[in-house]
């Protein structure tokens, strides 16, 4: 028999976020660098401050992202894709709420050729008619499949209710939005909000000065206008009822989306609130999971998340459950909120949630790619990376009383929207 003691669990040490290297090109573009050796893989992220927030109609920014490699004056869509694919590189483009992101992955030796192709798209995209039409047709087909998914419908109804169905944070794709997309709007968004707007560049993985010189040679010839004034979107009070039941014929389960408008990362309560929400429904050991999955078996998963944006935020509790458990799930969610508001959390449970969350902070700086991603996302959300360190510090010392206060202040169950989609 080997004598063994249960190993001691050490409290986590989260070091301060490593500040990136910073280079400024001759035309003023900023490059943030995160060096790390990864088998000679280099990643470049070009982020433009536009995204959903600056589009005139829903899905314009998304469509520009999807059609980014659809052809230039010099290359058809096929030739462009073939050239990128042949290098074994990827150029992926997506739009967030505030950032229009172009991400390039390449083996280091292929980075110059890949960046040249990316820049050809960025400076010379023409969006051919045939590509646009093909895109519309296939998007509609995809959207029809989405319309069959109860969780998609629930999430959309929830966003619509909280922010309004035309607000950048409030809409989700609809067939009618796709029908209304106009070719000229795509083109003008591209010119005004992507091509001619000053980007920020994030460089990560394997690189040295030669990659900085490469970026200089590609980007320095352009004079970008200074930052424009940020738009303002107001939230439409569309009077959606607080409780909605949407019928979906033949659904084997119902999808629930419960929540309302809440704070974002800029709010002074955010750090404590994020720990409170972790305890409530943010991880496998949360109250919602322990009760509704692990005790009752009503669902495969239930989560509460804080959805934070540069200018706003919301709390969303969501799950899928068989129709007969819907009411019981809602009752249990409410009772878990009540407990969080009335009872002080025990020290073991608090320690567990806190360390879990600090582990998450640690993993957000695990390696150059993760560091870059975290830093970039903080910038897009309008935050300095110092906030990251402050959040981790605050979480370390949060008390049971603070958790209870947060729950009382930010979880008002009767004011929350309740969306149920199912039979």
């Amino acid at each position: 028999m080997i004598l063994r003691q249960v190993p001691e669990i050490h409290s986590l040490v989260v070091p301060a976020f490593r500040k990136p290297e910073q280079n400024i090109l001759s035309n003023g573009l900023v490059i943030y660098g995160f060096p790390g050796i990864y088998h000679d893989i280099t990643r470049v992220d070009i982020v433009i401050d536009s995204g959903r927030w600056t589009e005139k109609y829903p899905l314009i920014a998304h469509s520009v992202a999807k059609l980014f490699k659809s052809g230039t004056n010099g290359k058809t869509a096929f030739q462009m894709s073939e050239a990128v694919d042949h290098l074994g590189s990827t150029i992926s483009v997506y739009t967030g709420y505030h950032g229009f992101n172009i991400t390039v992955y390449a083996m280091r030796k292929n980075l110059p050729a890949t960046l040249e192709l990316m820049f050809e798209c960025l400076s010379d995209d023409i969006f051919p008619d045939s590509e646009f039409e093909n895109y519309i047709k296939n998007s509609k087909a995809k959207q029809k499949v989405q319309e069959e998914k109860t969780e998609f419908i629930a999430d959309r109804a929830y966003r619509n209710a909280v922010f309004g169905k035309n607000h950048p944070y409030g809409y989700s794709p609809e067939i009618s939005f796709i029908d209304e997309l106009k070719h000229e709007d795509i083109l003008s968004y591209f010119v005004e909000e992507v091509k001619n707007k000053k980007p920020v560049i994030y460089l990560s993985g394997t690189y040295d000065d030669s990659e900085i010189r490469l970026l200089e040679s590609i980007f320095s010839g352009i004079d970008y206008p200074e930052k424009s004034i940020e738009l303002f979107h107001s939230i439409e009070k569309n009077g959606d009822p607080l409780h909605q039941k949407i019928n979906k014929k033949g659904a084997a389960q119902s999808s629930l989306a419960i929540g309302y408008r809440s704070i974002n990362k800029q709010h002074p309560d955010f750090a404590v609130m994020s720990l409170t929400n972790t305890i409530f429904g943010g991880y496998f050991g949360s109250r919602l999971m322990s009760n509704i999955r692990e005790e009752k078996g009503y669902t495969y998963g239930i989560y509460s998340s804080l959805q934070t944006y540069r200018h706003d935020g919301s709390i969303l509790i969501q799950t899928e459950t068989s129709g007969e458990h819907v009411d019981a799930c809602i009752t249990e969610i409410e009772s878990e909120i009540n407990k969080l508001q009335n009872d002080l959390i025990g020290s073991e449970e608090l320690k567990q949630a806190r360390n879990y969350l600090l582990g998450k902070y640690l993993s957000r700086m695990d390696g150059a790619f993760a560091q870059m991603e975290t830093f970039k996302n903080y910038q897009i959300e309008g935050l300095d990376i110092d906030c990251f360190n402050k959040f981790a510090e605050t979480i370390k010392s949060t008390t049971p009383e603070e958790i209870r206060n947060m729950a009382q202040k930010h979880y008002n169950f009767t004011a929350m929207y309740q969306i149920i989609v199912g039979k």
Partner: protein
Amino acid sequence: MSKIHFERKVLNNGLTVIHHSDRDTPFVVFNTLYKVGAKHENPSRTGFAHLFEHLMFEGTKNVPYFDGPLQEAGGENNAFTNNDYTNYYDIVPALNAEIPYWLESDRMQHLNINAKSLRLQKKVVIEEFKENYINQPYGDIQHLIRGMVYRQHPYQWPTIGKDLKHIQDAALSDVKDFYQTHYCPANAIVVIAGDIDCDTAFSYAEKWFSDIPSGKMQEVKYLSELPQPEARELTHYADVPQNMIIIAFAMPGRLEKGYFEGDLITDILSSGHSSRLHYRLVKEQEIFSEIDAYITGSNDTGMFVIEGRVNEGIDIQHAKNCIWGEIFELQKNGITEIELEKVKNQMLTYMRFSDASLLNKSISLAYYELLGDADLINQEASQYDDITAEDIQSFTQKYLQVHQSNTLYYLSNS
């Protein structure tokens, strides 16, 4: 490509322990692979290996709540089951590296098996089954297509199980037997990777695992699929917006000649916008709104699958003929050197990128050890690189014939 270095040690009770050092991360991954998957199931109790995976989180004699200490250690854990094996992983900050040894050794021998947790996890798995397979449009494709391709081999059901009823029927005695038979040192592979040195990794392994009774390694042989004499077809109707066509073929298993060829062909057909099926049938001819080709990558005879969502107004037989047109073209004229170079480059970048993740590396090391030797991880790149255009063409002639095909017409009710 830089080599992935590792050390291997087999404990006296037969447990294989592999260590890989990676000092660029503050984490340690503890990965445990058990050599049991859906293919080991009783045909009237399908979905059992996966249901059992859920029960592994229900606590042990010494640790009633398994996730608790791990979360308290700032760690995370999860598991997955496939047709060949079941894999559990724990990721912890390096200063808590010993915690998963304690937890995993405990649940290798002292799992708390009781009627209450079985009853509960059956309910959870039934909700999972509904969420991912019944309540999703096209969610039962794997059920249908596996049933067509496999007549002998237990790959004929997916890991979630053939039927909800099989999960409802699982009995406590089944759980006990399964645990006894499959969850033991001789039937497991442990990988410890990350910010931990080899001596520490192995001495912790001795300390926590060496006194667990060995158990027996389970060598189970299955009936191989007989060569398919003629084409099979099935038509299925469902409430979906679009018709879909799925064509599947049996192909070589993971260690057989032809496996890597099959993988590269699916890339030639559908990886990236310049791939054949995507460019010709989605963009040029507008037959499909989406099309995909993939392999299932299983240890024994695998599946090579092409599936596409057919555009409105296009005849389903015409859509099928268009796919065959592309297959015949491959059989007759093969591929160009440029195409071959393209998919190899894509594969190489993908593999390098995937190796940047500590968790991916750990799971791969365990998986290759299951296949026979963890060092296969270092040979994969050259196995792709050695493939010639002729190899590709002869694969299509050997495995993608009409009489070897299984066609599923998945049609919209409306």
